[in-house]
């Protein structure tokens, strides 16, 4: 027997269930309780950059929209800076920029959307630049542990992105690209399963 390492183990995940909104977005559950709902304003009013809206649906393996999904997004500002102490450029992050959003669906259609500024490129590992992207985390009834993925933009140069290039089957990289619908509006559908299953990340 060797010495015990004595690390703790991460708590096991359990599904967020169908009533996740009570805890994370009570207004959507149908009642008013907190002074503030968190995650409604990602960029703030003063952050520079292109103002965009992103919309989409999450589809299950049968092609039906997942109407009770809850998404959270995390992104850098238009200069590629995260509002977090470990970003070396944090002092230059846009004023009022939060970078984090909590996104809920229309319970009838499953459609979701959020408003933000388009992020800038972010320095990745070993100095390789990552193309502009938004990190996603989604939970719902039937999802045992939150799913991570990234959204890139089809109208940016993604050719050298170190994460997209890790996807072995090149056509699957398309599942991570938001489509430009019109100026300032992007569409990003997430497919949990089946044809064109979105690439999910173990981060």
């Amino acid at each position: 027997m060797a010495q015990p390492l004595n690390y703790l183990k991460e708590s096991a995940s359990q599904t967020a269930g169908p009533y996740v909104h009570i805890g994370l977005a009570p207004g959507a559950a149908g009642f008013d309780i907190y002074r503030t709902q968190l995650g409604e304003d990602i960029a703030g009013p003063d952050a520079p950059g292109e103002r965009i809206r992103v919309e989409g649906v999450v589809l299950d393996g049968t092609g039906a929209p997942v109407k009770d999904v809850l998404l959270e997004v995390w992104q850098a500002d238009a200069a590629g800076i995260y509002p977090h102490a470990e970003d070396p450029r944090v002092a230059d992050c846009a004023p009022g920029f939060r970078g984090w959003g909590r996104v809920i669906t229309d319970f009838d259609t499953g459609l979701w959307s959020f408003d933000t500024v388009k992020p800038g490129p972010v320095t990745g590992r070993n100095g390789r630049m990552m193309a502009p992207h938004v990190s996603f985390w989604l939970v719902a009834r039937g999802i045992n542990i939150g799913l991570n993925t990234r959204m890139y933009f089809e109208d940016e140069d993604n050719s050298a992105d170190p994460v997209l290039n890790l996807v072995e089957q090149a056509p699957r990289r398309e599942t991570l690209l938001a489509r430009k619908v019109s100026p300032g509006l992007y569409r990003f559908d997430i497919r949990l399963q089946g044809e064109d299953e979105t690439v999910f990340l173990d981060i």
Partner: protein
Amino acid sequence: MKPAEFYQRDRTWQPPALTPDYKTSVPRSPRLAMLSLQGSMSEITGPTFGHSHIDPIDNDLIRNYAKTGDPVGERIIVHGRVLDENGRGIPNTLVEIWQANAGGRYRHKKDTYLAPIDPNFGGCGRTLTDDQGHYYFRTVKPGAYPWRNWVNNWRPAHIHVSVFGTSFSQRLITQMYFEGDPLIHKCPIVATIPDPRAIDQLIAPLDMNAAIPLDCLAYKFDIVLRGRRSTLFENRLEGN
């Protein structure tokens, strides 16, 4: 030493996506392998929260929605620490909880269970951990309730818990169960967790030392988020 990457998530400890006895996971589980990423700036950062975002009463579910009096049910304190896998408390991190009322009914427009709504119970709370990672809530013990899976499935009494940590890669939602509940080991959602030790880690013991005599009982629930390496040797995470 600078903190570096997070320890890889143990996917043999965490529930897999596809768990057919929990039927809803069947159409909602990815079938292709996930792409494993080494942490970059996008993963080791994450949102932070402060006391300007929440109010002191937000952690008191007995009072934060009370209209005509206290809610019905067994009064309890739920307390513990948010720790990382190195055993260090995680300070100033947001903990959000939600639960059914004492009769097993949620205040949600989609819940139609026949047990009544409690007019004095909202069923959600939130707080920030202190500088040692401690948190506490006051609430009533939630009731068990039936759900559509097999025809006679019941959820054990549970409280949903959402935690952030310091980075987007630590984000976690789990559920807290109560010591001694015979429904725990009959539940297909609990059984999505493959390792019985990981299930035990989600069962809060009765904590009589934290109970308030003649007022309320207490349960203790520690939550562990992923730990991270220290940079014993430079690994150029930020690449400069």
